[in-house]
């Protein structure tokens, strides 16, 4: 039997523990699959073959072969072919071999390969401490080894170390000298006596590959239990507030400068952001409002900086944004959220409750200092006297409005007029009135906030809404009042005239109303049961066939996420842009529909949407603000 055959005969894995000793007499004293300490006499001829055994006394004949063994092996001096140790463990002492030298393949532990005869010692795929004694002719070949190697003085071909690790001490070489190939520095040894890892016997593996072994279930369980546990979020982790924006970018209204001025030369500026994009803000934003090409965001903090604006600033609707190049000039376009300084008496105590934006003016509501207005005042919408020929760009004027009886709790900007609602339930208005949107009984402009009469006099109004030229008000009993433009049949149910300049009660039988929203040409309300009703003109949300109606039509709740699997889904809020609608349901999902002007719907497509469509936002939507061609949402993260 040649040594090669015996190498293959052995198993690579340690053999399973055998209970009891079973001695099988094989030719030449071969013990296969045994444990214990069998003593093998000193047979003559083919040498001893030990499978998983120990202590092989010196053999005569061919060789001593130890395959798949454990424990201490002492392979005495062999005859001709030398000793072959394959897949072993423990301490191996391979005595001086005869001719072919000793070959240690796939071993572990301490190996001492005594002085070899001619072919020298071959150590392949080993671990542990190897001491390769002085070799004969071919020298020692160590391939794919680990651990400390001491290569004694070699004979002719010199020592060759291939793909090794660990500390190598290469003794004096013979002729070809030592060749060290692909060595690595001393690395911490991974458990020389750890779990057994036998490498393939054939060839010299480089020591990088690990043979996949099927581990017992106990080992797997132990490995699993000892694996580290990661914690990504604690038990009391708070949900983070985020702001998402989408729509038309070139005016800067989205607040991300790289959309307008890209930060790398090869990037292109983005005209439209079709899907929600996260806007990084310094503070938690509590209120946001979209105007016609600009945005205001505010926070309820008591810090000095509580209001930021971005977008169009040609009428100083974002205040005076001092330019860095020229201290006397203000920016016409503000590309990122820039703080707006307000002339507050107590800047470190006042909190901003709400902001609102119109076409070219904006209103800010504070808790203790009343209302501030800035921007265009050509129609008196800022609540101050119209100055003929006033230049509104680069203006420092921020007006403080105090002509109200009681505290103002809501401000709403129409296109060129302003509405104020006080604590007592009264409504004030100022600004352009050609469509009767001021509701004061005339069609002139008003530059001083004046209380409304008509059907809302004496009624406790809890909400007002406007964005274009028509307005709606909601009383605490769920009654609806409307005035302003009626060219698009918003008030056609009560009157034929196209302009209504006095608030009129709208006798709709649509349940108790909870939320109202007024768009440019269409209106929408949400009632107590969570149903959405729309009327007016344009894409109302009931398919392409319904383009105008004077009486409210209900949009089926299944379009807002109601299904058998989630039967208690309700719409909780409704908002209007100029020609689009946005609805929030109680699960924090946002549904939009309407004209998709420059991608303002945020659905990823540029086509108009004729029925409510869900916007995918990574978070629970808390509030949404719609503008003409962009939208801003305030979102809470899921976890």
């Amino acid at each position, binding site marked *: 039997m040649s040594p090669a055959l015996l190498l293959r005969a052995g198993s690579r894995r340690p053999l399973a523990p055998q209970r009891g000793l079973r001695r099988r007499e094989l030719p030449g004293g071969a013990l296969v699959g045994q444990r214990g300490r069998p003593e093998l006499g000193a047979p003559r001829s083919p040498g001893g073959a030990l499978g998983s055994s120990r202590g092989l006394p010196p053999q005569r004949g061919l060789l001593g072969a130890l395959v798949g063994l454990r424990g201490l092996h002492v392979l005495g001096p062999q005859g001709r072919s030398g000793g072959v140790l394959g897949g072993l463990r423990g301490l191996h002492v391979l005595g001086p071999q005869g001719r072919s030298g000793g070959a240690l393949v796939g071993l572990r532990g301490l190996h001492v390969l005594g002085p070899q005869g001619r072919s020298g010692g071959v150590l392949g795929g080993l671990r542990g401490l190897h001491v390769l004694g002085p070799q004969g002719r071919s020298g020692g070949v160590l391939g794919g080894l680990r651990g400390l190697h001491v290569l004694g003085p070699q004979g002719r071909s010199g020592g060759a170390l291939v793909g090794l690790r660990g500390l190598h001490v290469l003794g004096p070489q013979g002729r070809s000298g030592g060749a060290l190939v692909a060595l690595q520095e001393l690395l911490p040894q991974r458990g020389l006596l750890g779990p057994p890892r036998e490498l393939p016997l054939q060839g010299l593996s480089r020591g990088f590959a690990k043979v996949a072994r099927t581990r017992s279930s106990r080992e797997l369980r132990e490995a699993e239990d000892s694996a580290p546990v990661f914690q990504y979020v604690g038990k009391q982790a708070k949900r983070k507030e985020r702001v998402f924006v989408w729509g038309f970018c070139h005016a800067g209204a989205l607040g991300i400068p790289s959309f307008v001025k890209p930060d790398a030369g090869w990037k292109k500026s983005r005209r439209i952001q079709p899907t929600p994009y996260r806007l990084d803000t310094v503070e938690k934003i509590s209120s946001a409002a979209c105007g016609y090409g600009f945005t205001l965001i505010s926070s309820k903090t008591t810090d000095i900086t509580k209001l930021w604006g971005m977008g169009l600033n040609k009428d100083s609707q974002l205040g005076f944004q001092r330019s860095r190049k020229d201290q006397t000039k203000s920016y016409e376009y503000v590309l990122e959220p820039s703080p707006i300084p307000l002339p507050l008496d107590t800047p470190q105590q006042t909190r901003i409750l709400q902001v609102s934006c119109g076409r070219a003016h904006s209103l800010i509501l504070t808790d203790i200092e009343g209302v501030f207005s800035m921007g265009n005042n050509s129609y008196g919408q800022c609540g101050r006297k119209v100055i003929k020929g006033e230049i509104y760009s680069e203006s420092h004027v921020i007006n403080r409005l105090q002509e109200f009886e009681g505290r103002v709790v809501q401000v709403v900007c129409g296109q060129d007029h302003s509405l104020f609602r006080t604590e007592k339930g009264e409504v004030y208005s100022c600004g352009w009135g050609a469509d009767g949107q001021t509701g004061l009984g005339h069609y002139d402009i008003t530059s001083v906030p004046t209380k409304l009469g008509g059907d809302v006099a004496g009624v406790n109004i809890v909400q007002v809404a406007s964005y274009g030229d028509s307005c709606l008000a909601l009383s605490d009993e769920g009654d609806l009042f409307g005035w302003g433009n009626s060219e698009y049949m918003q008030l056609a149910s009560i009157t034929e005239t196209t302009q209504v300049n006095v608030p009129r009660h709208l006798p709709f039988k649509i349940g108790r109303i909870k939320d109202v929203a007024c768009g440019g040409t269409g209106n929408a309300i949400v009632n107590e049961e969570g149903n959405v009703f729309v009327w007016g003109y344009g894409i109302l949300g009931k*398919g392409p066939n319904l383009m105008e109606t004077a009486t409210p039509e209900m949009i089926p709740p299944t379009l807002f996420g109601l299904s058998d699997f989630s039967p208690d889904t309700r719409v909780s809020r409704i908002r209007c842009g100029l020609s689009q609608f946005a609805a929030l349901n109680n*699960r924090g999902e946002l549904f939009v529909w309407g004209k998709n002007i420059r991608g303002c719907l945020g659905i990823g497509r540029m086509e108009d949407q004729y029925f409510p469509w869900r916007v995918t936002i990574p978070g629970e939507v808390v509030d949404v603000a719609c503008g003409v061609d962009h939208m801003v949402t305030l979102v809470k993260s*899921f976890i």
Partner: protein
Amino acid sequence: KAAWSGLNGLFTVYKPSGVASLRVRDSVETLLLKELNSLKQPDMPQQVRFLPTTVEGNAGKELTLTVTQLPVLAAHPLVRGWRRILISLCDLMASCFCISVLGVGHGNKLLTDLYDAHLTRTYTVRGLFGKATDDFSDTGKLIEKTTFDHVTRDKLERILAVIQGTNHKALLMYSKIDLKTQEAYELAVEGLIRPMEKTPPLITAIRCLQFAPPEFQLEIQCLHETQKYLRKVVHEIGLELKSTAVCTQVRRIRDGFFTLDSALLRTHWNLRNIRKSIQDSRIKVQVELQRNLGHQ
């Protein structure tokens, strides 16, 4: 004879876990065949043959034809062998309990129609928080362990709502219908928009049945899914909750309109029950297929 005629249609069996679907199909087929062939065989048909014989005639032996009746050997059971039936099944699901729809005889064609109708299936999926493995099930190689004490039922349901919403949107988008038409609006209202061709897996509905950390159970209604996809969904739910999760069990409880009630247990796999099951589902199958394929 009557037995054979009743065997044309679809029926469901309850496949236990760990058994390959093909094995189940084979065993059902073997059982059926055994029973069918053990029934009383009809008498062998006889045929009339004219055979040449020799007859003592006038001038010695003459060749004439005589009439005899012989059995048709081709119909002999030993010659013919066992009668065969063809059973095919809808899809393969190893290592999970599921109800499997099998078709017999003409029912095989119905199976194809059923596939084209793109009906949804419902699964109950059990998961375990705290572990992440490479094949998303708890028998795979461990990748990471995480804490999960911050996970509450409320957070899980929030994530499930988002999954449902995004999949619903994908459903509408894959159905390749022009969203600007009134028809699209009406279908969307009724929830009948459904893709009528092969799409990536889509979840039509998902909800949490049980929540007892670290274990939880979900009911998932989906289209064109694979078992690996369901396990991946569990894994991704774990990731969204800033923890990790593996799937321990997947069970199919409804396939189109075949539910657990109509599935036959292992003990009931015999001819009589199968025939009864085919009969019961015949009308349902017809109605449903008409409704769904009529849209095309």
